[in-house]
């Protein structure tokens, strides 16, 4: 079912609730909202909270028939992510009321099982990188701001990071 059809099914059910359509919407959008949260909030718990809140707000809007253009469901979810993150920064607290009123099925928004990378293979692939590539990759993933003092410009770091991650992926896929 396309996004727009899903949105229409939820809207048409209204207060009768189309549980299957709602669960599908949550399964479809939870990973995107979680990634958005991890990217902008850099905190796993905050990203999990964002998933709950954004999906609750989306379902609320759909059930009430207030999403004007179902074709733009993805844009609406993204806009809600942006608004909630801004609200979080402003310290607004709409969340508690929503949590009391709406229930998003937990299994729909749980972290998907992440891909597992075999550690010995990963260590060997990291060892195969150049010294600077390894240093940039580790620093990039350990602490975002820790690569400032490598005698490298941000542009250099970006180029090295692209090259290193390309090599690392290729090495892991060759396993």
């Amino acid at each position, binding site marked *: 079912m396309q996004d727009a059809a899903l949105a229409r099914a939820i809207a048409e059910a209204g207060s009768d609730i189309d549980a299957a359509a709602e669960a599908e919407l949550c399964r479809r959008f939870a990973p995107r909202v979680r990634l958005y949260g991890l990217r902008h909030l850099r905190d796993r718990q905050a990203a999990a909270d964002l998933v709950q809140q954004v999906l609750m707000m989306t379902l609320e809007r759909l059930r009430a028939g207030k999403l004007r253009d179902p074709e733009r469901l993805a844009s609406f979810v993204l806009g809600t992510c942006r608004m909630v993150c801004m609200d979080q920064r402003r310290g607004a607290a709409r969340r508690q009321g929503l949590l009391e009123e709406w229930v998003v099925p937990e299994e729909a928004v749980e972290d998907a099982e992440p891909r597992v990378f075999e550690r010995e293979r990963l260590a060997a692939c990291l060892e195969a990188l150049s010294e600077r590539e390894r240093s940039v990759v580790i620093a990039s993933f350990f602490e975002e701001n820790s690569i400032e*003092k*490598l005698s490298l410009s941000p542009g250099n770091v970006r180029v090295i990071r692209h090259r290193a991650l*390309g090599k690392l992926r290729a090495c892991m896929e060759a396993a």
Partner: protein
Amino acid sequence: MSAELATLVDYWFGDLPPDREGAFEEHLFGCVECTEKLQELVALGAAVRNAWRAGAVRAVISHALFDAMKKEGLRLREYPMVPGGSVNCTIAASDDFVVSRLSAPLAGVRRVDLVTDAGRFEDVPFDAATGEVLMCPAPAPLKRRGAFTHRVRLMAVEGTGERLLGEYTFEHAPS
């Protein structure tokens, strides 16, 4: 690396200009394939972070990463070394990392190679301002080793020639 993956990497590390970031997020929210690729990149990052924390990987690191590791509460055993210096060293079971702080006259140096009994490691990261190279051996295999002597030389590589910046001797004993 495909252009698509390069964009995902830039997005994840905040390297896209704001207008391109907004447009890319619009795309991401409607693209299952990009979501899956970004999830895989995030999982790879987590695996790198975990492999580093578990002591499976060696690296020459930046001072910023060194500071970030301390801030995270990792237990670092430090050995500050001057050129020509020798030290009795070890790694305890409770140590997360050993960091050898190799001081050297690095002002004006463009490339540093690190030469050990195990081989030559070209173009290692260094911080000319602090005059240090931070060498971080992989802790997990180091904890399993018996006593040994490890000699390290830092070489400045200039044009077609090179010059010795410093030589350092580590007399390692198990803890």
